[in-house]
């Protein structure tokens, strides 16, 4: 079979397999499948789209060894402030996305700048910056957050086709950025070995700031889609905002794995879709939220264990073959020695 076809089949196997299993389980319990109307399709696509965007945002820094714990707070700050200013200007619809993106870039850029200037470890910096970014939308809106209830012109943000287009555009952008630009090549070099990359002339600091900027912009787009659907985004404090973003680590890492057969962007879309189908199935099976979260995180841990040990069978097989070869050689040598001994006795 053609290698390309094999790769496509391997990529599609994930969502198809998960869909098959969950559909069967849901049918056994409820008598109908996971998809019983267009609403189910829209719900899965919307959630998968938002998850893809957040996972791509995480990947910008996480793949370079930087876990940014302020992404959730950037999501709050950019979405709430951008959305609020948009409301004040009497704008709606796509403008909400534009403003959220702009403020997301701003907060991401400032976080990146703080990272390269202070040289504080990313996780520590993320906690500090996260606490600061959370306060800003809280103070700006007097604790109200962003309320889009009753606002006209926002139907497009809940339109399934628009979300699909947005997700595809962002994925294509990320794919081109990573694979066809100087920034992408330099990022891959840094991911390989930061010290060698720096010694070979790559400006790792500029690259880091750009990564933080893009990550900030993407999480705010995801935040605005969420706010449009739930009609509000509340301003929170105490780093409570981070859970929504870090819960997308699973699709990000699964996406990187699936991306071995295509590219990271396609892998992330497929991974997000797979996990959303799984979660949607659990919802239809009436699992409570704590149980759903526990199952999700349990699967994530199992996946990480698999990633860390996926070569183990090949290693064991090679070891077994080597041991068998050594035993055979030993037996042959013993046989020859016995033969020689017999000949000399004669």
């Amino acid at each position, binding site marked *: 079979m053609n290698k390309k076809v094999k790769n496509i089949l391997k990529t599609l196997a994930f969502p198809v397999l998960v869909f098959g299993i969950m559909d069967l389980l849901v049918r056994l319990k409820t008598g109908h499948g996971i998809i*019983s*109307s*267009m*609403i*189910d399709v*829209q*719900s899965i696509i919307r*959630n998968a789209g938002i998850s893809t965007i957040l996972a791509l945002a995480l990947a910008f820094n996480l793949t370079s060894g930087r876990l940014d714990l302020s992404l959730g707070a950037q999501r709050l700050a950019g979405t709430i402030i951008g959305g609020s200013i948009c409301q004040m200007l009497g704008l709606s619809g796509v403008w909400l996305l534009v403003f959220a993106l702009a403020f997301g870039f701003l907060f991401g850029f400032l976080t990146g700048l703080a990272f390269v200037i202070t040289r504080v470890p990313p996780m520590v910096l993320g906690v500090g910056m996260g606490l600061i970014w959370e306060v800003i939308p*809280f103070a700006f809106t*007097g*604790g*109200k*957050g962003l*309320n889009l*209830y*009753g606002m006209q012109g926002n139907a497009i943000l*809940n339109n399934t086709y628009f979300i699909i287009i947005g997700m595809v555009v962002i994925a294509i952008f990320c794919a081109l950025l990573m694979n066809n630009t100087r920034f992408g090549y330099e990022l891959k070099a840094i991911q390989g070995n930061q010290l060698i990359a720096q010694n070979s002339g790559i400006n790792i600091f500029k690259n880091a700031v750009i990564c933080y900027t893009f990550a900030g912009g993407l999480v705010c787009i995801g935040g605005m889609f*969420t706010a*449009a*659907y*739930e*009609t*509000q985004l*509340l*301003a*929170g*404090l*105490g780093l*409570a*905002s981070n*859970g*929504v973003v870090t*819960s997308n680590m699973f699709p990000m890492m699964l996406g990187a794995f699936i991306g071995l057969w295509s590219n990271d962007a396609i892998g992330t879309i497929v991974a997000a879709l797979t996990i959303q189908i799984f*979660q*949607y199935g659990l*919802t*239809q099976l*009436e*699992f*409570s*939220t*704590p*149980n*759903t*979260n526990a199952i999700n995180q349990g699967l994530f841990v199992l996946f990480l264990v698999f990633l860390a040990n996926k070569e183990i069978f090949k290693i064991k097989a090679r070891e077994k073959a080597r041991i068998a070869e050594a035993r055979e050689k030993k037996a042959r040598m013993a046989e020859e020695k016995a033969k020689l001994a017999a000949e000399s006795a004669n």
Partner: protein
Amino acid sequence: MKKVLALVLAVVMVLSLAACNNTPTEKKTIKVGVANIMTGESLEAIKNYYNNEVGPTLNMEFMISEGLSNDASGLVDFIDKAYASGCSGIINMITGSEAVNQGAQKCEQYGMWFCTNNSAVAADVAGLSHNIGHCGADPIGMEEAYKKAFSQICSDGENHSVFMYTCAAPGKTAASHYYSAIGVLEAMKETYSLTYTKSIEDIVNDQNPGEVAHDKMDQIHIYLCPGMDFSNFGQYVTACQTQLQTGNYDIFAACANWASFTEAIKGCESQLKKDIKIVGTMNIEDQTKQGLSDGTIDGAIINPLNVANGVLAAMIYNAVNGASANMKEAGTAQLLGVKPWACMSAEEYEIIANLDKEVGKFVLGGNGLKELTVLTNKNVTYKDMNNTLATLADIQKVVEFMKK
């Protein structure tokens, strides 16, 4: 020499006696910490009420926290800060039982008065000397309001089915949510003569979402979805949409955050081409008015946000002024209940639309508030306060009360 000394001493004594006047020209301001969990418009309404109405009326100063999370550590932390700032008391809005217990004990340790905005007495700390009581949505009132709303909606002779987001009902985490869910189940039981397979309390306390089992499940469907994980609130919206789009339900009820479900409900309405009625616990705010006006909402159970807040401030005032025993029964903290208002139409809501939002329009303000304190009634007790709250259950009587 002796005569001069005697004269000087006499003058000093007279001047000292004159200084010991029983009526001080300036009363000390009572500083109170408010451990708040609200955000958004509700937070602004609380701040406005405390700072611009209660403060000037009772000479009180309020230190209001940002939206704390519903756990003990945030409350205890805030109490430490309030104590350091010189607060005499704490008005606690964190309803979790562990938080109330720890908060009351902390305040007992510091000698600060402690009262809670919730709908259940914390039995473990009810006997503490500085725990002066609770005031919140009257549990029976919530149950009756939901029962009334549902009985009205279901009185058309048609079969109706309901999906209810019960939020913090299981385990009475929020007692008002618990009794709201009970009200709905009671109303459905009475209207359709249902026999549930489990007791209503067991049904509401179930942490898992699911359909309520009864003897007429082929005609009537009741689905309860509990959930307090606000970091992943989208899951509840998804769960709601999943069930509503089966077409089995035509009423949606929510103990909290009703607006977050409206897009999902609209999607189901347009897909199924049917109207899904929305009933829920709401506040006096613009989106409630808009929802009732444009027909999105069919029933609003309004918790008059600041009535409980006013009562709690009055309780602290009375305690600081030596009347803490009057706020209790035989040394045990009591529960005062604020009855909700059930508005089934925009016209009913209009009567209360402007209440509790600005100075001069607060339900408990001015003389009405003073009457709950020792400022005007030296022998006021918690029973007197409860009687006042009972009269405020009727919207018409509220309007008369506010004319005081």
